[in-house]
């Protein structure tokens, strides 16, 4: 597979708002079922262990015309739920037998209820990820929640998870996380070789296909970039913070990178990188998943930060780890978790002398001129003065 072939595949999957890859998998596997999940984190291992195909629902993006979705949401609510409802009301999600709604924010929480009312025949579950400061208490609660979820998924799929299916699911997602870490490392170290546009589309495509298909493409892509040293270029290195749920349009990602910045870390599709260590494949798989979540997740706006210095420190640590020159706070309009977190994160960055810039977007934003000017000026100011 050439890099171009891999990217052609990824762009096709990314742009396909009919989820053809998932539908094809279902057609090829009679009797099997698919379970959707919303941002930011769902335990995909459980879905796979119960014999179902996990499918990430990250909104309709820039290509979906909203016809019915706007009738469900007021103007002061972010765009994501209206495009997700649009996908559902236009029957593009009709292949899903279950949908999981993680506790990312109250919009997604309440969307679970909208789903219950609109589609009573579909299995709907709100996933209340454990919050708090005691990892032991959180792990125990999460284990019980996961066990209940698993039992339900097994009923929906008609395929009880086995020790073997569980080990396979955990090991396969460990590999996927490891490959994504490698992709991010490659971009961080040599961003001229790994444009974020490509990295993003590849990872996003991976959310809607069987994970082994993603692994195959992602490993192919890594091999290709190893072969291609690329032309070293000098741009301002930025991390993009706040776009963990509603995803920015691809045009915005391209705009940032074409206006003199390299994105060297980001929050896009953060569920893939939420767990910071591998999940053990030995012993009780549900317990292992629970402990992995309760014990080691990245710091993000949707998870309580018990350490009073933690927020400020997290931003400076991220900047240091990415050897970044500055931070772009990019939040979806009306995104509570991102926008409520921004003052603390920004204060942490500014106190450390890190240049920052903030803007808002919607997944269907189509005019990028203003962003180009803003990020271009930001990149220039970093280059000229080392600060905005």
């Amino acid at each position, binding site marked *: 597979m050439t890099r171009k072939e891999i990217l052609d595949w990824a762009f096709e999957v990314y742009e396909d708002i009919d989820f053809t890859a998932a539908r094809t998998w279902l057609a090829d596997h009679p009797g099997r079922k698919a379970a959707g999940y919303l941002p930011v984190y769902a335990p995909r291992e459980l879905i796979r262990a119960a014999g179902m195909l996990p499918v990430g629902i990250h909104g309709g993006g820039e290509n979906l015309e909203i016809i019915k979705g706007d*009738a*469900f*949401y*007021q103007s*002061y*609510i972010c765009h994501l*739920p209206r495009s997700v409802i649009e996908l559902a009301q236009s029957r593009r999600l009709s292949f899903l037998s279950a949908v999981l*709604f993680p*506790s990312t*924010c*109250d*919009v997604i*929480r*309440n*969307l*679970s*209820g*909208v789903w*219950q*009312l*609109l589609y009573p025949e579909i299995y709907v*579950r*709100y996933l*209340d990820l*454990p*919050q*708090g*400061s*005691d990892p032991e*208490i*959180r792990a*125990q*609660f999460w284990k*019980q*929640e996961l066990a*209940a979820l698993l039992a339900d998924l097994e009923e929906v799929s008609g395929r009880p998870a086995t020790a073997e299916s569980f080990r396979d699911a955990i090991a396969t997602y460990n590999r996927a996380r490891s490959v994504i870490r490698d992709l991010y490392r490659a971009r961080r170290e040599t961003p001229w070789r790994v444009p974020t546009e490509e990295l993003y589309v590849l990872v996003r495509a991976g959310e809607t296909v069987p994970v082994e298909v993603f692994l195959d493409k992602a490993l192919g892509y890594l091999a290709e970039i190893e072969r291609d040293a690329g032309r070293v270029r000098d741009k301002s290195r930025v991390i993009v913070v706040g776009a963990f749920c509603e995803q920015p349009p691809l045009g915005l990602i391209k705009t940032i990178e074409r206006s003199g910045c390299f994105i060297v870390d980001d929050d896009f599709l953060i569920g893939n990188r939420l767990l910071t260590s591998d999940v053990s494949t030995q012993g009780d798989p549900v317990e292992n998943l629970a402990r992995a979540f309760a014990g080691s997740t990245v710091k993000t*706006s949707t998870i*309580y*930060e*018990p350490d*009073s210095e933690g*927020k400020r420190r997290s931003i400076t640590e991220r900047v240091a780890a990415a050897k970044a020159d500055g931070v772009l706070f990019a*939040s979806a*309009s*009306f*995104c*509570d*978790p991102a*926008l*409520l*977190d*921004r*003052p*603390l994160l*920004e*204060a942490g960055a500014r106190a450390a002398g890190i240049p920052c810039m903030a803007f*808002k977007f919607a997944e269907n934003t189509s005019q990028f001129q203003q962003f180009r000017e803003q990020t271009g000026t930001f990149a220039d100011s970093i280059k000229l003065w080392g600060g905005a």
Partner: protein
Amino acid sequence: MASADPQKPRVSPDDGSSKDRSMQLQKEMLGEHYRRLESAPETGEPVVYTFVPGNLTELIRSFGALPVLPEINALQSAMRGKSQGYIAAAERAGHSEDVCSYVKCDVGMLKAGNVGPTGTRLPKPDLLLLSYTGCFTFMKWFELLREEYGCPTVFLHVPYQGDGRQTAEQRAYVIRQIREELIPALARVTGRSYDEDRLRENLARSAAAENDLVAVLQSARKTPSPIDAYFGAVYYVGPIFSAFRGTPEGAAYYRALRQEVEDRAARRAGPMTPSGPLDRQKYRLVVEGPPNWTHFREFWRMFSDEAAVVVASTYSKVGGTYDFGFRHDASDPLGTMADYCSGCYTNLSLPARVGMLENYIRDYGADGFLVHSVKSCNSFSAGQLMILREVEKRTGIPGAFIESDLVDARYFSAANLKNRLESYFQMLDARRASGAPS
């Protein structure tokens, strides 16, 4: 939504809407509470900040600490015309215009010296008790306040009733957090040990007050209704939602209130409103969503001028859904607190909220149903259009949808609201004239 006039002071609980004894009692209780808070740095009384939904006032008080509810400060600031300045200060400090205006009002008040709504200074918290019940913003709010106050924070995660109920495992999880995290944290900051007998006494007083409150709220089943269960209920639920659940003053307040309402019902009199006593009631409404606080009286008048009385509301259940049977149970102190937190209105699933509204419309003989959607609050607002449709479908009663905000006057457009309400009332008239069932 269009911009409104600059914010002016609009109403206070003692503005003459009612001369009832309960109102006087409430005023005295609040005044005394804020005075104690002001002198807490001298008296050494510990102070615990917490939120209205899922507030564990009985537990806090059993440790001899005084509760502060930031939402109450925000709404009171708005009623006294102070919120706009606070919000502006917070936005200048980098807080987004998109987020909950309660948070910005609170942050702005803090930056302006933390002078509370009654003009007395609020003390710093000794503990932030982050009862994470029914609202994502709570988590961010106290992360922000912790930064400002540098005090300890203890977190209580109350699982959402996504499937319409609290499971045994979820209940055990909440109890465990109360036992292993909250109680030790309260003991540390207050220097007292856990006194279960005192807690039980508080819980027993809570249950008595809850009985009286439910009798008050359910009096609206009568025609005419002796209360307004939305605007008027804001005052009725004030003590039980804030610092006074489980206190002797709280219990006395609810006894007095119930007596007044029962007297009014016996006289077939309506509630006092900004348009005067509302004895002749033309429309009986159920309302979903919180009120606007910046123009509270003006907003209420849009209803009372049309002789519309609210007979049931969901907002009056954010601090507890007592009218569906829950009472604090002194025989099971930790379990009952877990049950209380789990059952607060914004912790209920959308189907459960729809069921509650449907129930209110039928039980209280309502002929109209209104959603007041506020920009600030995703917990309430996201999904309200679905709620509207579903309730209309189930009851056959057409609803109305109006929008403004809690404490940000920029989103209160009196003309738009008035027009919308007038057309709605006309539509209800037309339905009546056509003999449609109500």
